[in-house]
C-alpha cells in the first residue's frame, strides 16, 4: 500500500470542507481541553491539600492506644457459648492511656533511618472561651523548637511566632479559624476550662486564663478551625494528664514512605502509629472519587465529540460515494479507501488533541489569574491547577482513541462499498 497518494486524498477531503473539518476538530478539542482543565483542577486541589497536610501535620503520629485493644472481660464473657452468664450493656472500663517511657521511645524513633525529627505531644480537647463565646479546641501541647522541626508551623504563623509560647506562663497559639470564631487577636486573654481527671489535674469546672501570643493559618480549614498550641506542661495541666504524654509526632525525610514507616514503628513499639495518609484517608478517598467522576464526565464530553466525528465522517462517506466507486474502478483497494477515511479521523483527532491541550493550558492560566476565594476543605484565594504531562497524555489518549474508534465505522463502511451498486444507482 502506497500511503502518499492516500494522504493526499485525505488532506484534500479535509481542506475542501474547512468549516466541517474545523467543527470536528473543535469537538475533539473541547473534550480534550475540558479533560485537561478538570484533571488539572482536581490535581491542584489534591496537591494543595497534600502539600499543606504534609507540611502542617506530622508525617507519622504515634497514638496512646493499640490498634487491637485488649478484650474487655465482660465482652469476652458475653461472647462465650454454653455458659450460664449473660452480660448486657457492658461499658468499657475507663482507662487513662498514655505512652509509657516516652523519652526512650522518642530516642528509639529518632534513630530509625528515614526519620528526620520527632517530638512529644500532649493532645486533648478543651473548651476555650472569650466573653460569652465558647469554642471546642483540639489542644496540642508542644515543645516549640522540637515541634517546628516536625511540623512547619512557624512558617504558617500570621501573627507572632511559635517560640512566643515561652513568653508567658499561660501562652497559647490559635488556628486562624479558631481565633476568628472566638473573635480574638494576638494579645487578647481567653479562658480555658480545666479538666479534673489525672494525677495533677486542676479543679474541675474552673478556668485558666491564657494569653494569645500568636495565630497560624495552614490553609487547611479543618486544622485552622480547631487546633491550638500551648507548651506541653500547660496542656498537661489543662487536660488533666499529669505528666503523661499521649502522642509522638514524626517527620520523615520522604513523606511518601509514611505508611511503611508507620507500620514499622507500630511493630517496633506496639502503639498505634498512623501515617498522614491514614489520618486523612477520608479526604484522600474523596479526591480519588472526584478524580474518577472527573474522568467519567470529561470522557462523556469526549464521547459526545466522537459521535460528532462519526456523524461528520458518515456524511462525508455518503457524499463521496461516487468518488469512492471511481477510486475503486481506478484500482484503489478497499483497504486504500478505508485508510483514506481513517487518516481523516486521525488528522481530526491529532489536531483536536493539539488544540485541546493548548486550550486546556491557556484556560488554566486564565482561570488561575482571577481571584476566586473559596473556603472548604482548604482555603484558597484563586483556583489552583497542577498539570503534570500525565494529565495531557491521558486526555490526549482518551480523545484520540475515541476519535479513532469513531472514524473506524465510516472508514470500514467506505472500504466495503461495492462500486457496482453505487454506479448502478447513479446510471
Amino acid at each position, binding site marked *: 500500500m*502506497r500511503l*502518499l*497518494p492516500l494522504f*493526499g*486524498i485525505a488532506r*484534500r*477531503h479535509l*481542506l*475542501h470542507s474547512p468549516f466541517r473539518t474545523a467543527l470536528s476538530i473543535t469537538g475533539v478539542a473541547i473534550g480534550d481541553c475540558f479533560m485537561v482543565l478538570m484533571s488539572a483542577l482536581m490535581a491542584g486541589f489534591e496537591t494543595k491539600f497534600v502539600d499543606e497536610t504534609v507540611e502542617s501535620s506530622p508525617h507519622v503520629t504515634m497514638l496512646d492506644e493499640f490498634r487491637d485493644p485488649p478484650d474487655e472481660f465482660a465482652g469476652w464473657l458475653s461472647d462465650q457459648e454454653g455458659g450460664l452468664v449473660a452480660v448486657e450493656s457492658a461499658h468499657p472500663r475507663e482507662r487513662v492511656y498514655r505512652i509509657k517511657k516516652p523519652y526512650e521511645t522518642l530516642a528509639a524513633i529518632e534513630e530509625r533511618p528515614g526519620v528526620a525529627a520527632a517530638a512529644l505531644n500532649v493532645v486533648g480537647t478543651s473548651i476555650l472561651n472569650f466573653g460569652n463565646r465558647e469554642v471546642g479546641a483540639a489542644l496540642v501541647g508542644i515543645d516549640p523548637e522540637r515541634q517546628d522541626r516536625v511540623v512547619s508551623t512557624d512558617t504558617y504563623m500570621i501573627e507572632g511566632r511559635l517560640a512566643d509560647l515561652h513568653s508567658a506562663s499561660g501562652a497559647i497559639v490559635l488556628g486562624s479559624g479558631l481565633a476568628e470564631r472566638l473573635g480574638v487577636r494576638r494579645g487578647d486573654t481567653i479562658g480555658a476550662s480545666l479538666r479534673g481527671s489525672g494525677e495533677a489535674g486542676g479543679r474541675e469546672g474552673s478556668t485558666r486564663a491564657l494569653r494569645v501570643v500568636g495565630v497560624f493559618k495552614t490553609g487547611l480549614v479543618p486544622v485552622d478551625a480547631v487546633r491550638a498550641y500551648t507548651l506541653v506542661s500547660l496542656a498537661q495541666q489543662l487536660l488533666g494528664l499529669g505528666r503523661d504524654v499521649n502522642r509522638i509526632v514524626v517527620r520523615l525525610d520522604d513523606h511518601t514512605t509514611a505508611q511503611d514507616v508507620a507500620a514499622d514503628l507500630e511493630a517496633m513499639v506496639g502503639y498505634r502509629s498512623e501515617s498522614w495518609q491514614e489520618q486523612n484517608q477520608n479526604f484522600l478517598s474523596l479526591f480519588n472519587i472526584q478524580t474518577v467522576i472527573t474522568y467519567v464526565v470529561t470522557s462523556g464530553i469526549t464521547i459526545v465529540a466522537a459521535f460528532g466525528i462519526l456523524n461528520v465522517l458518515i456524511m462525508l462517506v455518503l457524499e463521496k460515494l*461516487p*468518488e469512492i*466507486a*471511481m*477510486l*475503486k*474502478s*481506478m*484500482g*484503489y*483497494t*478497499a*483497504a*486504500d479507501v478505508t485508510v483514506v477515511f481513517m487518516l481523516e479521523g486521525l488528522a481530526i483527532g491529532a489536531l483536536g488533541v493539539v488544540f485541546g491541550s493548548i486550550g486546556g493550558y491557556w484556560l488554566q492560566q486564565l482561570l488561575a489569574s482571577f481571584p476566586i476565594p473559596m473556603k472548604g476543605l482548604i482555603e484558597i484565594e484563586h483556583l489552583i491547577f497542577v498539570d503534570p504531562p500525565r494529565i495531557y497524555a491521558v486526555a490526549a489518549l482518551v480523545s484520540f482513541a475515541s476519535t479513532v474508534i469513531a472514524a473506524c465505522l465510516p472508514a470500514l463502511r467506505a472500504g466495503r462499498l461495492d*462500486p*457496482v451498486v453505487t*454506479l*448502478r444507482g*447513479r*446510471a
Partner: protein
Amino acid sequence: METRALRRTLGSGENALEILHGLDVVIQPGEFCSIMGPSGSGKSTLMYLLGALDRPTGGQVLIDGIDTKALSEAALADVRNRKIGFVFQFHYLMPEFTAEENVALPMRKLGLARRPALERARELLGLLGLAGKEGRLPGRLSGGEQQRVAIARSLANRPLVVLGDEPTGNLDTKNGELVFALFERLVREQGQTIVVVTHDPRLAARTDRVVRLQDGKVVDDGPARAVLARAGERS
C-alpha cells in the same frame, strides 16, 4: 479480452434475477466496439464484468489471458489499475483535485511519483485539447471538458482497454460528437482498444463493431454498419 459462457445473476433464491445468459464475446486489440441494446439488456453489467469491477456468477472473463474469477480483491484492483480505463456517464472527478491531479490519480496508485505523474497528466490533457486548463478544479470546467478529463484519466496508465459506459449520455450533441471523435482518434492513431455502451445509433455507426444485447443475450454481433442496418430493418 474475452468472455466465455458469461453469466451474471443478481440476488438469490426466489428473488434471483439472471442478467446475462452465457455470453461469448471477444474484443480484439485495437478494436473500437460499441455495445447496444435496450435498457435492462445487461450492457452495463457486461461492462462491469469486463472491467473487473464485478465477478461473474458463471463462465469466465479473461483480461489479457487472466481469469478474473480466480483473483483476490487486491489482484482484481491491480488488474483494474493496470489494464482497464473507465469512463462513465458522469465524470466522477474528485472535486477537490485539479484536472491534472485527477488524471494523475491512477498513476499515483500504480506507484508513479507525483512529478512524473503530473507531467504525463498534462501531456494527456494537452492531447485531449485541455492545455492551459490543467490546474482548474472540475467545478471550473464545462461538462464536455470534465468528460475529457475523465477520458484522460482512463488513459493514464496506458490501459489494455478503455471501457465507456454511456460516456456521452450526460453531454449535449456537440460535446458527445467531440468525445466520440476523441475515441476515434485514440483508436486510429494510438491503437487503443475501446468498448463503449451507447444508445445512440449515429455514434455506434462510427465504431468498428457493434454487439447488440437483448435480455442478457447477444442477438447480433458484427461490423457496425451491418448490425445497425439489420437492427433498422427489424424495427
